[in-house]
């Protein structure tokens, strides 16, 4: 009874109802969508970890990167429980995949899970397993693996013998997994490590997920603004009804309960819709997220979404929590409302200067916290805490700063209409401030993330040009072919620069040591961000090594320091090079030294310098008989790298647009719910001789001015955000630091978008005002009696 009386309000105010539902739906959708993405990715890491690292089984590595198979037999016969693994990259179809060879008989249980219910005999005689997505990508090949969800995307799991044959590693193994107690003492030439565990991958990708979560939380908060304003208004508008119901004898308890039930009903409806929408959104974004994670971290994430009931429950819970948060204030006020409180909306009333002072105090405290975190904090969490504090401070400052700007403008204004315009805008700030805060945050996030991405892109393209100087790169099928190719090419081209690498632990981090031939190609082009004088001569003279920026920043190692390389002991660091897009530590030593440290390491790739790439290519294909897929030319490589880059930040762009849209919707909701109130304020002006059209125009102009001012405020906040992302978050998350670059054209575009969003949000109320003509305004006077 009570409930139906309450609900009838919504039937008459369908727009308000829509706002509550849309706001809550969007908030739930964005939040739970992001959660679904995170959960999917984390699940994939766990799969990868179970297969590759055997639920954390320790690993025995040889100092030289590989070891003869006899070593495995020798250890087993000595009672050391180890299982051999052969790992390498191969081209299947025209896709590069990781070929993972295991011995199912000695492998830890995790690996065997991939073969559950499988055909052991088939596996031992060459059949493999791969994730369905990998299968889709590689298409039909000689090796046609069976589908298995337990294998990470991008990996083909085969028997160790099959892998050895395919990789040209007969009699060789990559490393051993320890399935029993560690041998004491450790056999010569072997090192125990805990590499590439799922925890490690999760650690690397944590920042990315934290990022997504932050976006989700931001969107959720912005969505709650919408709900809060709509529920608040509905409450005010129903004060009269509450009063009537109370006078009719409905107890306060049952009235409050009825309102709570109403709110729960909304939460349920919107929560379900939000889950559906969130699922769709996550499914649409997942391929890009997966591509990002693969591109940035090599994390194998499948591109298809799985549904989880836990996720759905959590999403619903968030919807209920959100509804409670947004509607709690209204319930509280109802509980404390005297029976005969006046129906006039006083609670929407103005601007207590007191609230503003509290906001400024809060902003000051948060800003101080942000500064303190910037000065003394370290680590990813501190970085994000800094961001959160600074953004919140900026959000709290939105209203005071806008109020100040409008006051100044009002002082400068001479014409009466303008004077009124500024004064009125200022007076309406409190009602709009929540939505404007949302807009400010969305804009600042856009500027910050946009600046970060654009800075990154500019640096990355520059770096690609320097790094990719070789006209073509060849991936030999095996070690023997690499040797043959080098012999074949040496007389035909200017230079053949082989790439050899061994996996290694550098300063306690997983990584690799690379060989570099002393050649002008590198001396002239290889970018360095720090170096000792005569770095290239020193490198050629085996005086030291180059390390990548990731290693330098994480371990705080710079030229003048030293790093331990397997088999070489402490080696001087001669220079540090930027190495974007690679999560692992790297060191480079000159080729000759590398070969003496790690003899027998096969060449993985050959970089070719040639004046006539077309002729070289033709020679390779026709005379040498190389498959075209083994050759990558420079343009292809660049295009590929850039494509990966662009896809990497596609998700960021998508979330930016979503956040901005939600902010615009918040504004729209606020403006629509306020439009009734505005009539009262505008009617005297109309009576005094301003036309309705003029007033509607002013309403639009006000929206634009507020958007403009908010944009101006968002600009420094956004730049601060970008600076923190580049100097703190990126360094912590990826291990590289980039210079901040300014892209005013992007800001102009964003300002345009903000203006359009604001126009879109205010257009309907303004249009309604204009179309309504004098009638609704006249009713303001008529209502007086």
């Amino acid at each position, binding site marked *: 009874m009570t409930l139906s009386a309450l609900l009838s309000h919504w039937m008459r105010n369908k727009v308000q109802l829509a706002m509550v539902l849309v706001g809550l739906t969007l908030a739930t959708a964005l939040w739970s969508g992001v959660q679904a993405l995170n959960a999917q990715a984390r699940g994939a890491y766990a799969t990868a970890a179970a297969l590759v690292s055997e639920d954390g089984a320790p690993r025995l590595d040889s100092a030289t990167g590989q070891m003869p198979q006899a070593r*495995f037999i020798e250890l*087993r016969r000595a009672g050391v429980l180890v299982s051999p693994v052969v790992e390498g990259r191969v081209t299947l179809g025209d896709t590069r995949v990781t070929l993972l060879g295991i011995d199912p008989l*000695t492998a830890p249980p995790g690996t065997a899970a991939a073969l559950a219910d499988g*055909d052991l005999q088939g596996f*031992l005689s060459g059949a493999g397993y791969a994730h369905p997505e990998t299968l889709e990508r590689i298409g039909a090949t000689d090796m046609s693996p069976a589908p298995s969800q337990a294998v990470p995307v991008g990996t083909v799991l085969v028997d160790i*013998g099959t892998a050895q044959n395919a990789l040209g590693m007969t009699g060789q193994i990559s490393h051993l997994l320890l399935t*029993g107690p560690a041998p004491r003492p450790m056999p010569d030439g072997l090192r125990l490590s805990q590499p590439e565990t799922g925890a490690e991958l999760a650690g690397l990708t944590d920042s990315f997920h934290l990022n997504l979560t932050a976006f989700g939380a931001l969107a959720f908060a912005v969505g709650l603004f919408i709900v809060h304003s709509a529920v608040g208004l509905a409450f005010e508008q129903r004060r009269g009804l509450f009063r009537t119901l109370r006078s009719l004898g409905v107890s306060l308890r049952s009235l409050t309960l009825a309102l709570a039930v109403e709110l729960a009903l909304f939460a349920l409806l919107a929560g379900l819709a939000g889950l559906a929408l969130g699922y769709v959104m996550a499914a649409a974004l997942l391929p890009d997220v997966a591509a990002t994670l693969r591109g940035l971290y090599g994390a194998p994430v499948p591109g298809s979404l799985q549904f989880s009931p836990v996720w759905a429950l959590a999403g619903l819970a968030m919807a209920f929590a959100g509804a409670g948060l947004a509607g709690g204030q209204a319930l509280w006020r109802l509980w404390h409302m005297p029976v005969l409180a006046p129906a006039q909306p006083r609670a929407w009333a103005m601007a207590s200067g007191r609230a503003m002072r509290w906001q400024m105090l809060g902003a000051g405290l948060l800003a101080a916290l942000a500064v303190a975190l910037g000065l003394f904090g370290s680590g990813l969490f501190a970085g994000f805490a800094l961001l959160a504090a600074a953004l919140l401070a900026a959000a709290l400052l939105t209203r005071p700063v806008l109020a100040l700007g409008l006051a100044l403008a009002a002082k400068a204004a001479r014409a009466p209409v303008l004077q009124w315009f500024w004064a009125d805008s200022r007076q309406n700030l409190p009602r709009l401030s929540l939505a404007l805060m949302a807009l400010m945050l969305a804009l600042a996030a856009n500027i910050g993330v946009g600046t970060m991405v654009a800075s990154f892109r500019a640096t990355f393209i520059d770096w690609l040009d320097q790094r990719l100087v070789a006209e073509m790169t060849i991936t030999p099928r095996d070690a023997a072919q690499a040797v043959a190719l080098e012999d074949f090419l040496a007389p035909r081209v200017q230079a053949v620069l082989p790439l050899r690498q061994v996996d290694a632990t550098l300063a306690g981090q997983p990584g690799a040591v690379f060989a570099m031939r002393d050649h002008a190609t590198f001396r002239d082009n290889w970018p360095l961000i720090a170096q000792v004088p005569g770095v290239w001569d020193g490198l050629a003279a085996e005086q030291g090594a180059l390390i990548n920026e990731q290693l330098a920043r994480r371990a705080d190692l710079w030229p003048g320091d030293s790093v331990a390389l397997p088999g070489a002991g402490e080696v001087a660091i001669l220079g540090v090079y930027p190495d974007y897009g690679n999560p692992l530590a790297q060191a480079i030593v000159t080729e000759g030294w590398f070969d003496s440290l790690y003899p027998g390491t096969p060449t993985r790739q050959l970089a070719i310098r040639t004046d006539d790439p077309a002729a070289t290519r033709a020679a390779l294909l026709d005379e040498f008989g190389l498959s075209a897929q083994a050759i990558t030319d420079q343009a292809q490589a660049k295009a590929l790298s850039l494509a990966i880059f662009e896809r990497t930040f596609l998700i960021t762009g998508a979330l930016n647009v979503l956040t901005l849209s939600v902010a615009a919707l918040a504004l729209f909701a606020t403006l629509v719910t306020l439009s009734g109130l505005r009539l009262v304020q505008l009617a005297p002006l109309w009576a005094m001789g301003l036309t309705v059209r003029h007033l509607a125009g002013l309403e639009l102009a006000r929206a634009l001015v507020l958007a403009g001012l908010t944009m101006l405020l968002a600009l420094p906040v956004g730049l601060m955000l970008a600076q923190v992302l580049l100097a703190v978050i990126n360094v912590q998350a990826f291990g590289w630091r980039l210079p901040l670059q300014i892209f005013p054209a992007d800001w102009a575009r964003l300002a345009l978008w903000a203006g359009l969003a604001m126009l879109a949000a205010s257009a309907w109320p303004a249009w309604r005002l204009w179309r309504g003509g004098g009638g609704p305004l006249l009713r303001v006077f008529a209502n007086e009696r």
Partner: protein
Amino acid sequence: MNVKVLIAALLLAPAALAQGFAGLGTDADGFAVPEQGRALQFPRDHGPHPDYRIEWWYLTATLQGEDGRDYGAQWTLFRSALAPEERDGWDSPQVWMGHAGLTTPGRHFSAERFARGGIGQAGAQANPFTAWIDDWHMTSTAPDGADAYSALQIAATGPEFGYDLRMQAQGPLVRHGDDGYSVKSAAGQASYYYSQPFYTVEGTLDLPDGPVKVTGQAWLDREWSSQPLASDQTGWDWFSIVLEDGHRLMGFQLRGDQTFTAGTWITPDGDATALPDGALSFAPQGTARVAGRDVPVRWRIDWPEQGLALRTEPVNPQAWMDLTVSYWEGPITVTGSHQGRGYLEMTGY
């Protein structure tokens, strides 16, 4: 279900499971089949027979420690072939599995190992005889000219135990069934089966509380076949018993729609008499709750024709081999018409 279970199923489980395993047919796959009348040859047949589907070297020892307690030790190497041949390297279709057990009156230890043939991690060879998987091995210590099995050393380790035992044969090899051709069902499934039941043992057990010197008696079984069981057979109860008067008795029943029994009566000199289906009868006398199931750990064995009526008691009723494929295997003491010691293996419970 994982790989090892599949392998173990192949090796140990009843035929119903084994034949249900995808990709493995029966003898149409080219495996050799035991033939009646084919004489065993030594030392050749001490070594592996890769053209047969399954094979094992199975040694059980009843032991007494210096501390006066009873112990039991088991060392087994199983071979299972995916194809009737041997190839070098990872291409080898031969799969090996080792089981080691050690029973004390209070505890039972077990461990398992898996390996592929062809790479050297596991295998067996006739001359000089050795069979191994990882660091576990059974190696002949017999002087030149003597039968390889007349003196053996075995060793195995698990996470909590280990043993190193030396065996000295006090009698000849014994062929079961028809000169080594042992029928396993009424339908005619059969294997080659011979034993060395006359070992005396000495050696050391490694237990969590420290090493224990032991002496005792041991029994080696050698068996290979391509058709392990009939499809209705669900498990077996197998006994090897050394009586105080010097006689040995090997007897088993294969449980199925119709129980099939067989056995061999061995005189102290090594003369063997095959006991046909139905000659022996096995009756459970009491069960114990072991690993969540009821296992008949007390038995009565009757051979009315000979006036033999034996009762068996386990040294430790909890002798459960808690491995990828699990079963009961442990030392027993024998009373009744004769006194003695022995080993009991029960599968399919």
